[in-house]
């Protein structure tokens, strides 16, 4: 009965794809790291005790000859494209969930190949040549994506494992078929944590529901009552149903966005701009209807009529940036394939269709505007204004230490920083060491991006100079700015500032002075190579 409600799905999983995409053979210990943490390991490294989540040092201490690789998502996706292309021969509706993981409904292809097992074999035969003996492929068929995905992670008839167990690794391919309608039974003994919803599963474990089967026995109405929408979703998964109720709305055709290149684009860089625009447009369309999308179809068409269609699925909803990333990966992979499968001409047309949409359950703003001014709002505004001003048009300051008023801070693009997090680099305590030669507060409020050249003379009208020992050649008397001559009423300095004296190329010898003019304005002057400049003003 429950089997009727979910689609029979086949999932093709290439384990350790981040490692495989770097071309590491399975018998060489290697690990891929993100921010000093292991995210993926080769089977040989796992045998030595290297696990995902370990710190770099810990991993190295367990396996000293471990090769450390940086994660490169673009590369992973680009190299995965041939695998997806190989599956194209079996079905036109391949859904890519991420690099290394694809799925598609079995219905059509299974009939064509004469049964699910024969189809699974065909899948294996198609994928194996693409892996060139570096990795393994696991094919699993079950009711619904979730069950199929877990089945792909299990040894046939065996237990669920987090990674790939070394016993099975010698086989180039592993197949697992859960009979129709048996997904619920198959899932029942699995640990509840396989739902990958830590907030929810923490509670469930404390309630004593530590397997999917126990959770599935609860009544759906009770689950909704207590755990809301996420709880219902998890409950559906645990029962072996599809994550989304099957009555998905069919998106109206006008939600699709497309672009015609004129002339056709042959390099990915030219496509990148268009992709971003299209993704934003798509999201604007969806937002105006209160929808968000869980699967997009991205189709590229060349001048000579070659077409490439890929379905990209995401467990949550796809943001504009996520859609843009996927389109870029897809085109990048296509344009970089071997000569035989590369398109023979430039890309003429790019279409993005929101294939599956669900009602958006975005953040509801506070009714009284109580949370105005918070970092989330700022982040949203930044995202919006970037479309007008470009990514470099919005910046935030960070301390870096330095001598002059303009050097103590650097500005970084606001898009590159998570504004909702605390940013210690923007706090004044960030640079603990005092910079010798820095002037005590108050610091000038106006720092001229291009210092203004000025003439400074002593009482005899001679240009004022600073000797190598840091002494003035006379009393500062008058100063000529753009606006004319002014008399210096008070001054202090010069304070010499030598920077990078050890490096003949970048070294700078400067001296600074503070001056108050007869109109009571105060300025910070600097002399470098006998030229005076107004560097900043105490506005």
């Amino acid at each position, binding site marked *: 009965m429950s089997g009727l409600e979910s689609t029979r799905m086949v999932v093709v999983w290439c384990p350790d794809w981040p490692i495989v995409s770097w071309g590491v053979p399975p018998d060489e210990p290697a690990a891929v790291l993100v921010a000093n943490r292991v995210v993926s390991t080769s089977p040989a490294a796992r045998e030595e005790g290297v696990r995902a989540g370990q710190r770099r040092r810990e991993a190295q201490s367990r396996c000293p000859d471990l090769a450390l690789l940086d994660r490169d998502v673009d590369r992973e996706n680009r190299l995965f494209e041939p695998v997806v292309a190989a599956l194209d021969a079996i079905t036109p509706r391949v859904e890519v969930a991420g690099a290394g993981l694809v799925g598609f409904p079995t219905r059509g292809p299974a009939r064509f190949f004469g049964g699910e097992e024969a189809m699974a074999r065909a899948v294996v035969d198609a994928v194996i040549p693409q892996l060139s003996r570096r990795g393994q492929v696991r094919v699993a068929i079950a009711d619904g994506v979730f069950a199929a995905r877990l089945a792909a992670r299990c040894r046939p008839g065996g237990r669920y494992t987090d990674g790939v167990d070394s016993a099975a690794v010698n086989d180039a391919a592993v197949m697992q078929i859960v009979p129709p309608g048996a997904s619920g039974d198959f899932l029942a003994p699995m640990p509840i944590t396989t739902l990958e919803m830590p907030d929810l599963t923490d509670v469930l474990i404390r309630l004593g529901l530590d397997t999917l089967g126990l959770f599935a026995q609860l009544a759906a109405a009770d689950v909704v009552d207590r755990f809301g929408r996420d709880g219902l979703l998890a409950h559906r998964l645990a029962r072996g149903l599809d994550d989304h109720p099957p009555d998905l709305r069919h998106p109206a055709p006008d939600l699709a966005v497309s672009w015609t290149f004129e002339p056709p684009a042959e390099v990915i860089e030219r496509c990148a701009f268009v992709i971003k625009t299209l993704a934003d447009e798509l999201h604007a369309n969806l937002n105006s209807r209160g929808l968000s999308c869980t699967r997009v179809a991205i189709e590229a068409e060349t001048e000579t009529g070659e077409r490439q269609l890929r379905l990209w699925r995401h467990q949550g909803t796809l943001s504009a940036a996520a859609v843009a990333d996927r389109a870029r990966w897809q085109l990048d992979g296509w344009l970089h394939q071997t000569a035989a499968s590369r398109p023979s001409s430039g890309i003429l047309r790019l279409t993005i269709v929101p294939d599956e949409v669900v009602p958006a359950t975005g953040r509801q703003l506070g009714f*009284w*505007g*109580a949370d*105005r*001014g*918070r*970092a989330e*709002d*700022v982040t*949203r*505004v*930044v995202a*919006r*204004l970037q479309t*007008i*001003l470009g990514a*470099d*048009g*919005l*910046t*935030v*300051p960070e*301390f870096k230490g330095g001598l002059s*008023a*303009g050097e*103590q*801070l650097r*500005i970084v693009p*606001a898009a590159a920083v998570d504004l909702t997090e*605390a*940013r210690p680099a*923007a*706090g*004044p*305590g960030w640079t603990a060491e005092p910079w010798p030669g820095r*002037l*005590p*507060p*108050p*610091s*000038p*409020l*106006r*720092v*001229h*991006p291009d210092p203004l050249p000025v003439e400074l003379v002593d009482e005899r009208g001679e240009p004022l100079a600073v000797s190598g020992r840091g002494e*003035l050649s006379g*009393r500062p008397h008058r100063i000529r700015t753009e606006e004319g001559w002014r008399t210096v009423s*008070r*001054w*202090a300095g010069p304070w010499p500032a030598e920077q990078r004296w050890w490096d003949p190329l970048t070294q700078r010898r400067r001296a600074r002075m*503070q001056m*108050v003019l007869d109109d*009571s*304005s*105060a300025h910070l002057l600097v002399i470098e190579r006998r030229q005076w400049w107004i560097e*900043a003003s*105490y*506005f």
Partner: protein
Amino acid sequence: MESIVDRDPRDSDPRVRDSNVGGRATVSELRARLGPVSLIRQQTENTTALRALPEALAPLASILPMGGVQRGWSVGVDGHGAWTLAMGLAGWLMEADGWMAAVGLEDLGLVGAGEQGVALDRVLMVETPPPDQWPTVVAALVEAMHVVCVRPHHRIGRPEARRLQARAREQQAVLVHLDGGRTWPYPVDLALIGRSQQWDGLGEGHGHLQGRRLLVEVGGRRAPGVGQWAEVRLDGQLNETRLNGAGSR
């Protein structure tokens, strides 16, 4: 009014509040937030119960209506020490979690702004938008920021200015004009003009700048009259607490 605010006498009873555990506190808290009265309370809080101005600017408080700058105003600063005054006010208006945006102020000395109390981890620098996009950009900023500092390089049209002003008032954000409001077609709500200043700490070839005494003329639409003056001392820092990371209030 009082009786509506404290609908449940137990809520204000200290014994009940002290002894309560868990659920009780949440319920009363929620009630305080949900009740129809909270709207009135919040409005009054926003407009009248402003914190006191920083000590250095206290001489201004006696002149300003209601003793401070009100949210939703436009403020123009001009003359001597104008930017210092602006940053001092901005740092004060940002409070503990607000943000400040600076539009087209590439030459703003951020270290100096930090010394005046602006929390630099909540500052967004925005480059000058093209004139036709200027109102759009500023309107978007006004929605998320407590303070938006501007110095347009072109004259703002009257309809745009009116719309921006209305938006700022509605969102309770302060628009600070660092050019004294010269490009603004309407008189600003509050104008602070530094008429003269006297520097301390600098001699003839010795010392360094330490602080100044600034004579400020208070003008603008909301000023209580013409020719109001105040003398303020601007030493190193205006809002010291903020720089040390301590919360305000």
